[in-house]
């Protein structure tokens, strides 16, 4: 949301000056009482486009609501009160468009049509204003600002949704789970990159501190590709958990991965590895002092 300073800066950017605001108010006075006809004419234009059918179809109530909202919209437009509240209401237009998934083309075409209509109306009024051209230019600037605000809000909402989605994916992709008192398991699936590795590291360390775990089983059976970078990240994670007093066991090492690691000359000596998750859990239970047969009995 804009602060008064933001509003002033944006108005300056669009070159909307005191004189423009005065001209817009003057235009509003001249068009007084013509708004309804004006809105009807605009919907006439929209009728010629597929979007009219899509959004209003045979829903008369919705059409009437939209038209009454437009009446308020244009009254505010011509009132020339370009303050924080005005900016907020124009951003709201973008939010509505985002919700109904209105395509940008029809919105921008509609704004352009509004400009043409206003120009035609003002041009037809008698007596002609001396400032007619400046008046139309001022209205054009304000319409451009309104278009910007709506589109900017739309983009912001989309960006927000995207961030939420990627955050959710990150959350879901590192499920560090306590599987036994003192033992954590993280089954890693998909692609490891440096961002993901950092996330795994942070989540794991936080979880170790929280659960006071002494064994961390990292199952990499589902990792798509293994290279030196990924291997080094795993070694780092292992070093880090050790500093927290927690042993890392890397499980799910396939023969191909094992060969790759050896061929790459990765120093895996100080990382405990097992072929299967079962082996890792057996070793883990022994490390935390729980015997696996008694564990199996407890689970049964």
């Amino acid at each position, binding site marked *: 949301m804009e602060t008064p300073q933001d509003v002033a800066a944006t108005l300056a950017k669009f070159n909307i000056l005191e004189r423009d605001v005065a001209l817009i108010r003057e235009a509003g006075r001249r068009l007084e009482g013509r708004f309804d006809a004006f809105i009807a004419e605009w919907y006439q234009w929209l009728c010629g486009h597929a979007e009219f059918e899509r959004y209003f179809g045979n829903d008369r109530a919705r059409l009437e609501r939209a038209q009454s909202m437009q009446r308020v919209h244009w009254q505010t437009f011509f009132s020339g009160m370009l303050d924080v509240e005005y900016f907020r209401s124009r951003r709201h237009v973008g939010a509505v468009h985002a919700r109904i998934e209105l395509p940008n083309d029809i919105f921008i075409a509609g704004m352009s049509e509004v400009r043409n209509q206003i120009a035609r109306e003002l041009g037809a009024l008698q007596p002609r204003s001396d400032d007619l051209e400046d008046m139309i230019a001022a209205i054009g600037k304000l319409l451009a600002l309104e278009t910007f605000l709506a589109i900017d809000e739309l983009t912001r909402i989309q960006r927000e949704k995207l961030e939420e989605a990627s955050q959710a994916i990150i959350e879901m992709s590192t499920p560090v789970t306590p599987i036994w008192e003192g033992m954590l398991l993280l089954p890693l699936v998909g692609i490891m990159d440096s961002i993901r590795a*950092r996330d795994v*590291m*942070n989540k794991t*360390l*936080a979880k*170790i*501190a929280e659960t*006071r775990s*002494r064994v961390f089983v990292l199952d990499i059976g589902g990792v798509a590709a293994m290279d030196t970078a990924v291997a080094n990240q795993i070694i*780092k*994670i292992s*070093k*880090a958990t*050790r*500093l*927290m*007093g*927690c042993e890392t066991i890397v499980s799910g090492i396939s023969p191909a991965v094992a060969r790759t690691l050896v061929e790459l000359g990765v120093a895996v000596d*100080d990382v405990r590895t097992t072929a299967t998750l079962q082996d890792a859990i057996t070793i883990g239970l022994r490390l935390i002092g729980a015997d696996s047969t008694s564990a199996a009995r407890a689970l049964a």
Partner: protein
Amino acid sequence: MTGHPAASSVDGTFTGGRGGASIVQVDGCLLMSVQGDIASDGFRASGERMLAAVRQQPRQAVIVDLSAVEVIDDVEFAALLELAATSRMLGARCVFSGLAPGIVAFLVSADLPTESVEAFRSVDDALAALRASDARAAGGVPA
């Protein structure tokens, strides 16, 4: 300082201020609880007192508890490693406890030499491990 029932003060002084450590005897080990800044004169003085205590009574283990430390940089980490190496030279096993996740993430991402560090989550864990290895040594089972 620690609230441990078997704790008895070795030097009885806590330097306070910017940094330092209290040193107490717990269960046959020396427990050094580090407070605040490691790169400080207070910490260096505490380290020397700790080493002096090790010399008086060698073969005991030292636990350096870092749970009250919020930040460790590479210089401070080097000072800790030096302390551990010196106490090992005097014949005392030196372990660390209570490293915070943020510190650990930094140490590892900065590629600092952490291999020689033996660490536990808490003082309790460290004491339990030291006791267990003592028992193994007494029973003649290799650790």
